[in-house]
């Protein structure tokens, strides 16, 4: 399936299968404020600064140009043709299956396993986005090789890159929580796994996911092969949240090394550049990811979503 679409296939897709109403409403509703970009030859999006004041114009363009890839901005502009008058941007998290730092498959591009793992990670991120951050206007898009979480809550769309980067680090568990706490009377040492709320809880969940998905080939900063073997040997304890036992088996100093190695690895769960860039363009849902011959589409229900059923264009089935 994951082979590049031919020019003929692209034409077939856009002329027979694609319809402009499949572009999600959250984009169509603001179409006149967004910048569109296209890749016509498979060498990256270099036809940018395009504007469509209404869906019909976009439809005509797509049907006639049948681009290799189509993108639209996460930013809203007063003058999108000049990328000027920035108004606000969606808050975006990009999880690309091919770049997940720990994945149990060893495929060179993407496969069913790593796409499944990407989905699991996305689902955990969304839980935290809703439960901790209380954000509600969340759209999930299958990008063809991973997922885009696109958030349109009013309060977050005006935030600058620095706030976005803090949110990102919170969600992926990139900072090691402190372990000394004081109440003004005495100081207490508390491990992240013994704190069932706030950031330490998020961090514990992320660390647990990573440890349970490590493979003997995984590489962590400052973790040698012997330590990695021991982590793999004892990690079953974490399935039952036996953190204290796990830490004892590994040893406290070595445990620290593992935790700090995973914290920096977690930074790679999401492509940070996409989150902090306020003027990014993202693949336009409903369009074709020609490199892998899959559709980029909005996911309505993450629980039941199966890219191999819902994101496969007809021409692939006919191949």
């Amino acid at each position: 399936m994951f082979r590049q679409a031919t020019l003929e296939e692209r034409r077939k897709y856009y002329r027979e299968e694609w319809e402009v109403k499949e572009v999600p409403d959250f984009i169509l509703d603001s179409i006149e404020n967004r910048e569109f970009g296209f890749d016509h030859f498979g060498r990256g999006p270099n036809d940018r600064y395009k504007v469509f004041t209404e869906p019909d114009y976009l439809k005509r363009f797509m049907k006639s140009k049948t681009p290799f890839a189509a993108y639209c901005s996460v930013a809203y502009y007063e003058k999108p043709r000049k990328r000027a008058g920035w108004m606000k941007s969606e808050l975006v998290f990009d999880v690309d299956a091919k770049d997940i730092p720990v994945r149990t498959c060893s495929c060179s591009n993407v496969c069913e396993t790593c796409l499944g793992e990407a989905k699991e990670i996305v689902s955990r991120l969304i839980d935290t986005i809703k439960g901790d951050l209380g954000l509600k206007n969340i759209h999930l898009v299958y990008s063809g090789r991973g997922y885009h979480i696109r958030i349109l809550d009013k309060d977050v769309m005006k935030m600058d890159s620095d706030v976005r980067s803090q949110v990102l680090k919170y969600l992926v568990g990139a900072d090691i929580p402190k372990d000394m706490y004081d109440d003004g009377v005495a100081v207490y040492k508390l491990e992240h796994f013994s704190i069932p709320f706030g950031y330490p809880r998020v961090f514990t969940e992320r660390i647990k996911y990573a440890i349970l998905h490590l493979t003997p080939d995984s590489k962590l900063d400052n973790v040698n092969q012997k330590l990695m073997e021991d982590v793999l040997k004892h990690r079953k304890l974490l399935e039952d949240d036996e953190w204290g036992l796990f830490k004892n088996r590994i040893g406290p100093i070595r445990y620290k090394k593992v935790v700090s190695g995973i914290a920096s690895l977690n930074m790679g769960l999401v492509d940070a550049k996409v989150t902090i860039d306020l003027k990014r363009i993202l693949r336009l849902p409903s369009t074709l990811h020609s490199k892998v011959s899959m559709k980029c589409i909005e996911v309505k229900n993450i629980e039941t979503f199966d890219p191999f059923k819902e994101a496969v264009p007809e021409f692939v089935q006919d191949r």
Partner: protein
Amino acid sequence: MIPMSFINPLSDEAKQIVREEKVDLQRIYDENDILIDRIYSIKSQDTSDDAFIPRNYADLVIKRLEWYVEKRSNSNYNYRKFAFLFDPEITKFDLVAFYILCQAVGLKFGPNSRESRVLVELQGHIIENRLKELNLNREVREELTRRIMNELIVQDRIKWTVLSDLLGSKKIYLHDLVLKDGYIILDKEVFIKHFGEEIKHRQPEKMYNLFIGNRVKELIIIKMIMQNTENYIESVHEKANIIEPNPTILKIADEVTEVLSKEIKYYGSSQCSGPRGQIKPSPLSVDKFPPCIKVALNGIKSGGRNEAIVLLLAPFLSYARLNPHVFGSNTSLKISDLDKDLKITKNEILPMIYDAADKCSPPLFDDQPQEKVNINAKLGFGMHSELNLQHEGETTWYTPMSCEKVKMNMPSLCKPDDLCKRLKEINPLFYYIEGIKNNLE
């Protein structure tokens, strides 16, 4: 009762007090007997030397700064010399001094200056120390915090998004807050309702005190007042264009510079203390470069070429060569202030950048020749293909990005070694300064 204005100089109560004071700016250097008497009456105050006692408003302004400079840089800092700063008795005078200081900094230096950064940080430290040193009993302190908080934030529940200014300026970190459904949990009952059952082997009340208690509330009010101070300086600065500044205020501004020049040797940046000790601009020592720069110099093999060359290397190499102490000194310098005829820039700095760009695969300028213009822009010479003195100032000379930004933008370049870790991975430039300094010692 402790006046709210002792902690929050921007509260309505404080503004009212300052208005009633009707201070005549022409007379802020006149000896003020009431102030002097008050300070002599403070028990913990060291009165052995008259020089310790501020004699007028202007003196008080300077003493505030001196306290901050001494506390940061003098290991023999004597608290009793500055005890008056922590006694609510001086509230009225302190408020006037605060406003004079903000106006001096706002009018002369503006919100993005080093002076403004110091002042905002100084205000944060003063509040923190006042709360600590007031030695109030717990309830009084909590009541004070509650009152100030009520004035600062109108609604009873606070969404984390309200604090985005503070988060963006790193005055507060998202991971320091306990969040539930978008709200910051500050109230004990709410905390127990949400997490009480999850907490095993410990008392939920105790966990509340450890994680939230009054501490988070105090943190939020301190940071909000810091942010409001910054906003106030900015508003003063905006007015500077339409109002002729008072000469007395400008005189104070000069004195501010003088006091801070003592600190310049030590000052790192608003967030951190950088490496101490001075090094002079000198030819670049590649072996002293941090790991990320070494990788970038050898060319980037895939993805992130542009960022590594234009955003990381160009600012790093130019500052490391010409103004390594940029974060401790004047950030408004231009390249030509340090390299008059641009000889160093053209003969030493640009060749290194171009060489690294050439080593990228594919070579950066082959398919993106416009990146040369971008490099010139990042050095402050506008969007032009030639580095020309007449275009200087059209863009700003980009300061080297922080380690955090490197990690975000180019995670593959960040391979921290022991020195990176020791310097807390703040800025690649600090690594270079440290390396050069050790070489000199």
